[in-house]
């Protein structure tokens, strides 16, 4: 499995690691190195007396290194992958040394054990009691939340920008106490509205109405479609057991990672991986929550391709999913990717999704033949039929997009809503590039 340099850089935990990894992508730094279909390994002469033993599981992109770094992957792992990407001839196809075969062996044993793992018997009565208690707390919390929303509406949002952090934080804490972490997050997001932006009122009302829809619909849960019930529960903060999910039948496909973004939330790094099924034409969001200083289970980067089975969370619009098992495969050519053919098709698709789930999050879309154009001093993406949607002002790489396009249409992944989108990646030549 050969990753491109962009894909390797996307695995780096921070810019300093990228830089350090780049410095280590020099043959002189490596005392020994080797590769086979399962693993890539090398010994890097560091500041210690013994060289660091660095190894990469190529079937699922996992790293191990004997260096003391708490970063993951460490600079040695990145440097080794970069060196392999740049100078593949330097890596002889050889048998794994003992320290590599031992680790690879342990990993496959672990996988097998995971599969065999039997569940502990669940005390269903206690579970039901806990569930009932939580639901009561949520209902009480939502009652308070609805009064709060009505107060805002009664007083008008004109003075909302004057509210200090405690105003939002107070309500978010009440939602956390009510065990409705999802609602707490929406309240915090509401408080994080950029009130200096022109037109903040519209984005504020969008979020407030989403909050209202979720809170209000929870009060009518029994009469709502069962799949939509799951969306409401999930938006409120009820979680679903991943083990339960894994028991369900998944979607087997070749999945292309069409985008990846990370954000820090308190003590967590939330990693969003957007996937696109090349055969099923389905989109999926795989979230990974990484506690500071700990290691994520998945190492995905934009442009990577997985042969995987995904289980979707139950939803009126299935989107969030977990990966049941996967292996990395070569990236396909653009010919395998069939996206939307224009903005009108996108509008129809979005309408259908919104009618099913009015408070959904943004989803990426692969759209063919879009070209960046300037119109009325703004950048737009024009489809082949001449329809335009504007490029979000938060998109910072317009010049790189233009450089790749040269004014010609490109197949690209965009994320956004209504008539404003932000490119996530483009097909250029035979490669898919994050942008």
């Amino acid at each position, binding site marked *: 499995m050969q990753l491109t340099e962009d894909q390797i850089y996307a695995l780096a935990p921070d810019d300093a690691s990228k830089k350090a990894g780049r410095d280590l992508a020099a043959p*002189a730094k490596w005392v020994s190195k080797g590769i086979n279909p399962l693993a890539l390994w090398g010994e890097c002469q560091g500041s210690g007396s013994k060289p660091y033993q660095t190894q990469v599981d190529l079937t699922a992109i996992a790293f191990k290194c004997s260096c003391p770094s708490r970063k993951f992957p460490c600079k040695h792992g990145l440097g080794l992958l970069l060196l392999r990407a740049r100078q593949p001839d330097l890596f002889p196809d050889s048998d794994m040394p003992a320290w590599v075969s031992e680790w690879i062996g342990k990993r496959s044993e672990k996988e097998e054990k995971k599969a065999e793992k039997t569940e502990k018997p669940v005390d269903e009565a206690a579970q039901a009691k806990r569930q009932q208690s939580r639901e009561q707390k949520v209902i009480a919390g939502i009652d308070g939340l609805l009064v709060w929303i009505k107060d805002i509406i009664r007083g008008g949002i004109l003075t909302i920008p004057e509210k200090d952090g405690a105003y939002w934080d107070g309500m978010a804490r009440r939602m956390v106490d009510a065990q409705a972490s999802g609602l707490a997050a929406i309240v915090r997001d509401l408080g994080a509205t950029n009130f200096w932006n022109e037109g903040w*009122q519209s984005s504020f009302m969008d979020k407030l*109405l989403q909050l209202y829809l979720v809170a209000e619909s929870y009060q009518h849960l029994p009469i709502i479609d069962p799949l939509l019930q799951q969306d409401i529960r999930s938006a409120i903060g009820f979680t679903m057991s991943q083990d339960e999910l894994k028991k369900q039948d998944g979607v087997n496909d070749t999945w292309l990672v069409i985008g990846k973004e990370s954000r820090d939330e308190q003590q967590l790094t939330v990693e969003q991986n957007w996937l696109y099924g090349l055969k099923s034409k389905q989109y999926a969001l795989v979230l990974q929550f990484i506690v500071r200083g700990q290691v994520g289970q998945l190492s995905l980067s934009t442009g990577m391709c997985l042969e995987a089975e995904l289980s979707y969370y139950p939803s009126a619009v299935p989107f969030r999913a977990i990966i049941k098992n996967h292996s990395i495969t070569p990236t396909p050519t653009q010919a395998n990717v069939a996206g939307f053919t224009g903005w009108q098709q996108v509008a129809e698709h979005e309408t259908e999704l919104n009618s099913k789930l*009015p408070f959904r999050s943004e989803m990426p879309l692969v759209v063919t033949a879009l070209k960046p154009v300037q*119109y009325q001093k703004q950048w737009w993406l024009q*489809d082949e*039929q*001449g329809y335009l949607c504007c490029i979000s002002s938060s998109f910072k790489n317009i010049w790189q997009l233009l450089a790749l396009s040269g*004014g010609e249409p490109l197949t690209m992944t965009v994320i956004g809503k209504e008539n404003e989108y932000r490119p996530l990646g483009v097909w250029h030549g035979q490669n898919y590039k994050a942008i």
Partner: protein
Amino acid sequence: MKAWEYVINTAMLGTDKQIPSPADLPEEITGVAALIDASETADKEVKFLQKAAAIYNYRQCGFTPLEQKELPVHTASPETSPYCTEAASAILSDILNEEPTALLGLWLSHCHQTGKILLPDVLPAVLDVALKDKSLQPLAVACCGNRGLWLSGLNPSWDYFSTVSDKELWQTGKPDERAGALEKLRTTDPDMAREWLQQTWPQETAASKADLLKTFRVNAGAADQDWLESLWSEKGQKVKEEVVYLLKRIPGSSIIKLYEGVLREAVMLKKEKALLGMMTKVSIQFKLPSRIDEAIFKSGIEKLSGQKSPFSDEEFIIYQLIESVPPAFWEQRFEAAPAQVVQYFEKYAPAMTGALGMAVSRFKAASWMPYFLHLDGFYVDFIDFLNPPEQEKYLLRFFKPDPRNAIHYALQLKQEWSADFAITVLREMANYPYEYNRASFNKHIRLIPVTIINQVKAIEPKDLNLLNTWAKNRDHLLKLLRLKQQTLNAFNA
């Protein structure tokens, strides 16, 4: 959408004021709104929130993309040169991450020499770096291909692709662009440059006159003399100063003739017979005439030597005059060849040899330079007139007595250093790790040959307290050298 505007307006003021009436709503929502309004249990706020939620969903479902089929087609022309390899582009990305414009210049020059162009995704980064460093612009323009040209048309910051002729720049450009165009022409056709300036001279302001005259420092010569002499009557002080500066560098100008006149009277080479005529006693005597034209002092010759000066006032005036006349004057005056003249000065007027050396520098008298190379004085202007091995040999002489100055001039050499010279310079640099730091290596990496890569690790400062600081610089230098090596390999240079 009007219904959404009503939602926002009502939300802004609060539900105690006006709320959207059903008449303002789209047809598809009026039914739902009527049901909400009919509710007897819901209060005003709930009714508003429910209707607003319906409108919100309606808005999201009803979005239509803007139709603009008539937008002009604007695409980049196809490339006529081949792209560089992915491997070369990866090295370029690494170089861009290190911020060394010198290495970028090297990469671009090799790319240009091999007739290749950049891969599109790095174009914005390269164009941005060239925007800040004008010296890279010609190479950036050459290596960015038609795609780069197309991008420059869209981004006004990258307008340096526009090819305005020097003549046009001279006629319509900003003051610094005009001076640039004139200076460029001075290097290739000084007479034409003079004609350009003569034509516009009456219309120029005093400030621009002084700035434009400065360009005449390039290739100032006898052909400029008459016109420059005619500028004595200019009113501007700065213009006058520049005219004097230029005339003092043109042999045969009135100022220099004046100086030569004084020196003819002030400096005498005396040859006397001694020891019953068996030997000739030679001496150089310095004595200013009793009356000196005050004009020489107005032209910049100082009268007083200063308290700490080793010269008397009279000697100091003569020293300045010797500095200011072409060395050829002494060939005639002493009736001797340059080698003999230098020998006379060294032997009979050693204190004045420096002034002669300065005159050689000032008048770029290349044929005189070899006679000064073995002397103590460090004549930096000579370096440009020597061939590369001679330059290094000359500089090496000053590494022991004056290492920092020697390094300073070594860093100004045009060509890559030889391996031995590079090791010597780096050994000295290691002793000043705060001065010659990472930024310094970024700037001067073009001078350091990759062949010394294995020897750099062994270089250490004399003071071991500086070792840690130097080690960081050295690691950075090694990284740059590896990038340089990779660049050369990528282009088979």
